[in-house]
C-alpha cells in the first residue's frame, strides 16, 4: 500500500496486472476460437486442464463455451484494456505531464488498484465454482443472467467492486488535474493526452454508477428473490417461475448500456490521447487545431452519454425515441471525425520518423476509422434489423478496441518505455511485432464483417454448422483461428523485447526529443518527479519553434 501511493509504482502495478488479465482474456479467446474453427473436435489436454465436467473427451461443452465467451469480454473490457488505458497510462503519465509531484489522493489511487485486483481475482476464480463462471455474455442480459449459475453472482459482486475502484481512481486523477498543475499550465496548455484522460475519468465517474445500480437490482433478483428484471408469467421449460414478477428486463438494458456505451469511449479517448502524443513527437509537428480537438474530445465524452439506446433499437421502443437515438448516434460521429481529421492533418508537412511507436499510431487511424464507419449502419434502425446480433457487430467493436485501442496502447509502450525504464525498446523486434500484429489482427477480424452481412449469428456454439446460410463461412473459421494463434506468437516477440530491453536496451533519456513535461525530468523519473518544480511558459507541442 505504501509503495502503491507513488503514482509511478501504481501505474506499473496497473500495467502488470492488466497485462496478465489481457493474456488470460486472450487465452480464453483461443479456446473458444478452437471450437468455432473445428466444432466438436477435441482440444488436446483440455480434459486434463478443465476437467470432465467442462470438456469431456477434450470437447468443450456448450455451457463451458459460453463461460469462455462471457468472461473473455468481461476480462478484456473491465480487467484488461480499461485498467491499462486509464489505470496504467493515466496514473503514470498524467502527473508527469502536468508537472505534479504525484497524485492528489495517493491512498485513494492505491485503494482503487487493490479493489480492482480483488475484483479481478474474484471474477477469475469463479471458474472453479459449481456451474462455473458467468455465462450470459459480458452484457449479462436478464432473465437469462438471473437464472444462470452462481458465477453470475460473483460477476455482479466483481462489477460493484470495479465500479468503486473506477470511482476512486477517477476522483484521484481528476482532482490532480484540477489542483496540482504546474504554475503556468493553463487548461489550454494541457497536453492532449491529459484532456483525453480527464474526459475518460469523468465518463467512468458518471456512467459506472448506472451499472452499479443495475448490478444491485440483479443481485437482489438473484439472492433475495425480487423481480426487478423478471416479468410476470415467466416460465422456464414450461414451468412457471416462482417469483412475484412485475419487473422489466429492458430496465437492465437501459442501465447497462448507459455505462457500456460510454465505456467504448473510455476505451477510445485515452487511445486518441496517446496517438496525439506519438504523432506530434514523431512527426515533429504541433497538433493541428488543438482547441478544436479539445472541444471535440469534450463533446465526444458528453455526447456519448445520450446514445445508449441505439443498442436497443429492436426492443420495441417508440418511433420518437428510436429516431432520437438514431440522430444522436449519427451526430456522435462528428467529433470523432474531427479528432481523426486533426490527427491526419497534423502529419501534413511533418518530418515523419517511422519508429515502431509511430507505425502503431499511424495504423490506429485507419483501424479506428474502419471500426467507426462500420458502426454507422448499426446505429440506424433499418440496417440494424439485418445486422443486429451477427458477426458484423463483433467485427465492428473489435476494430475499435483491438486494432484500435490496442494499437494505441502498443504505441504508448514503445513511446514511453524509455521514460519508465531509461532504455529504448529494440526497433527491429518492434517492427516485427507491428507488422505481425497488423496482418494477423486484420486476418482475424476482417472476415467477421462478411460473415455478419451473410447473416451468421454471433452466439452460436457450433459457428452455424446447422444453418445453410453459414455454410460458406465455415471454411474461414480455421484461418481466423490460426491467425489468432499467430497474433499470440507475435505478442511473444513483444514480451521478449520488453524483458530484454529493460535490461540491455539502448540507454535513452528523451530519444524522441519530445517537448511535453514528462520528458523534462530524468528517465526514469525520481521520487517527487521533478528536482525543480517546473514552470510552464508555452504550449505543450513546440516542434516548429526550434525548441525541440
Amino acid at each position: 500500500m505504501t509503495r502503491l501511493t507513488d503514482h509511478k509504482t501504481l501505474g506499473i502495478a496497473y500495467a502488470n496486472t492488466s497485462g496478465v488479465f489481457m493474456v488470460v482474456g486472450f487465452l480464453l479467446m483461443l479456446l473458444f476460437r478452437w471450437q468455432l474453427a473445428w466444432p466438436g473436435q477435441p482440444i488436446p489436454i483440455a480434459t486434463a486442464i478443465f476437467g470432465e465436467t467442462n470438456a469431456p473427451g477434450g470437447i468443450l461443452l456448450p455451457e463451458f463455451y459460453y463461460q469462455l465467451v462471457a468472461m473473455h469480454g468481461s476480462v478484456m473490457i473491465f480487467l484488461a484494456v480499461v485498467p491499462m488505458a486509464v489505470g496504467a497510462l493515466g496514473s503514470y503519465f498524467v502527473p508527469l505531464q502536468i508537472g505534479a509531484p504525484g497524485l492528489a489522493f495517493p491512498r485513494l489511487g492505491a485503494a482503487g488498484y487493490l479493489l480492482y485486483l480483488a475484483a479481478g481475482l474474484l471474477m477469475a476464480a469463479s471458474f472453479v465454482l459449481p456451474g462455473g463462471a458467468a455465462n450470459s455474455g459480458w452484457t449479462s442480459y436478464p432473465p437469462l443472467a438471473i437464472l444462470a449459475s452462481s458465477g453470475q453472482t460473483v460477476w455482479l459482486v466483481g462489477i460493484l467492486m470495479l465500479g468503486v475502484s473506477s470511482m476512486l481512481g477517477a476522483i484521484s486523477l481528476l482532482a490532480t488535474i484540477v489542483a496540482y498543475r504546474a504554475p503556468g499550465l493553463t487548461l489550454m496548455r494541457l497536453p492532449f493526452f491529459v484532456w483525453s484522460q480527464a474526459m475518460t475519468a469523468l465518463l467512468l465517474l458518471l456512467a459506472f454508477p448506472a451499472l452499479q445500480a443495475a448490478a444491485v437490482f440483479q443481485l437482489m433478483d438473484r439472492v433475495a428473490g425480487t423481480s426487478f428484471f423478471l416479468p410476470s408469467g415467466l416460465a422456464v421449460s414450461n414451468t412457471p417461475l416462482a417469483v412475484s414478477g412485475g419487473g422489466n428486463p429492458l430496465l437492465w438494458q437501459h442501465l447497462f448500456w448507459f455505462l457500456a456505451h460510454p465505456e467504448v469511449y473510455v476505451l477510445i479517448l485515452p487511445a486518441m490521447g496517446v496517438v496525439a502524443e506519438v504523432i506530434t513527437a514523431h512527426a515533429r509537428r504541433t497538433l493541428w487545431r488543438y482547441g478544436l480537438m479539445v472541444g471535440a474530445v469534450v463533446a465526444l465524452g458528453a455526447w456519448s452519454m445520450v446514445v445508449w439506446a441505439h443498442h436497443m433499437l429492436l426492443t420495441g421502443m417508440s418511433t420518437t425515441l428510436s429516431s432520437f437515438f438514431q440522430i444522436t448516434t449519427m451526430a456522435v460521429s462528428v467529433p470523432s471525425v474531427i479528432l481523426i481529421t486533426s490527427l491526419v492533418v497534423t502529419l501534413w508537412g511533418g518530418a515523419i520518423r517511422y519508429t515502431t511507436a509511430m507505425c502503431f499510431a499511424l495504423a490506429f487511424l485507419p483501424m479506428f476509422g474502419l471500426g467507426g464507419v462500420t458502426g454507422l449502419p448499426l446505429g440506424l434502425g433499418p440496417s440494424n434489423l439485418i445486422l443486429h446480433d451477427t458477426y458484423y457487430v463483433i467485427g465492428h467493436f473489435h476494430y475499435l478496441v483491438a486494432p484500435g485501442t490496442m494499437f494505441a496502447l502498443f504505441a504508448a509502450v514503445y513511446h514511453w518505455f524509455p521514460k519508465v525504464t531509461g532504455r529504448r525498446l529494440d526497433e527491429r523486434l518492434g517492427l516485427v511485432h507491428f507488422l505481425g500484429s497488423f496482418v494477423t489482427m486484420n486476418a482475424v477480424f476482417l472476415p467477421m464483417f462478411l460473415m455478419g452481412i451473410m447473416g451468421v449469428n454471433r452466439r452460436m456454439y457450433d459457428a452455424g454448422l446447422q444453418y445453410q446460410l453459414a455454410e460458406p463461412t465455415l471454411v474461414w473459421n480455421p484461418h481466423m483461428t490460426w491467425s489468432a494463434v499467430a497474433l499470440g506468437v507475435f505478442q511473444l516477440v513483444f514480451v521478449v523485447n520488453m524483458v530484454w530491453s529493460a535490461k540491455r536496451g539502448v540507454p535513452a533519456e528523451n530519444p524522441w526529443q519530445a517537448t511535453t513535461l514528462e520528458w523534462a525530468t530524468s528517465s526514469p523519473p525520481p521520487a517527487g518527479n521533478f528536482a525543480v518544480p517546473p514552470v510552464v511558459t508555452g504550449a505543450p507541442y513546440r516542434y516548429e519553434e526550434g525548441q525541440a
Partner: protein
Amino acid sequence: MTPGVDARRTRAADAGTWLFLASLVMFYASLYSGYVLLRAGSETWTTPWLARPILWKIQPFVVSNTLWLVLAFVNTRQWRLAAASGAPRSIGVWLPTMAASGVALAWTGAADAMLKAGSGPAASVAAASWFVLTGALALGVLGGGLVATWWAWRDRRSETPVHALRQLQRYWGLMLVVWFSIVVGMYFV
C-alpha cells in the same frame, strides 16, 4: 507545509468531494430511475402506495428519518461555523453520528415491520423497490456517520479543518435530497 501546498490540498479536496457527490448522484438517480420506469410501466401498480396499510405501519420511520437527517445537516453546519470561528466544539459534534445510527435503526425497524407484514423484497416489485432505495440510502447515511465519527474523534483536539466539515455538510445535503426524493416519489405520488 507551505501555504501553497495547503491551498492545493484544499482545492483538490473540494474538487474530489464534488466529483464524489456527482458520482453518488448518478448512483441514486439510476436506482430511482429504475423505480420510476418499473412503476410507470406497471398496470397493477397505479394505486398510491400511501394508501396501503403497511405504509401506515412504517410512518414513524419516515418521520424519524427526516428528523435525523435534518439534524445531521444542521449540526454539521453548526460544527463548521464553530470550527471557522475557532470556538470550542461541544458534544454536538457527535450528533451526526447519532443521526446516522438513528437512521440505520429506524430503517431496521421499518424493514422488520415490512417483513412481518409479509411485504418482504420478494413479495412485489413495489416492496423490492422500497427495500433497495431506502436500504441504499441507509448505507449512504451510515457511511456519512462513520466519517463524522472519525472526524468527531479527531476533533477532540479541534483538528478537523473547516473545508472538510463543509464537504461533510454537502454530503448530508445530498442525503437529504435523496431522502426527500424517495419520500415524494414513493409515498405521495
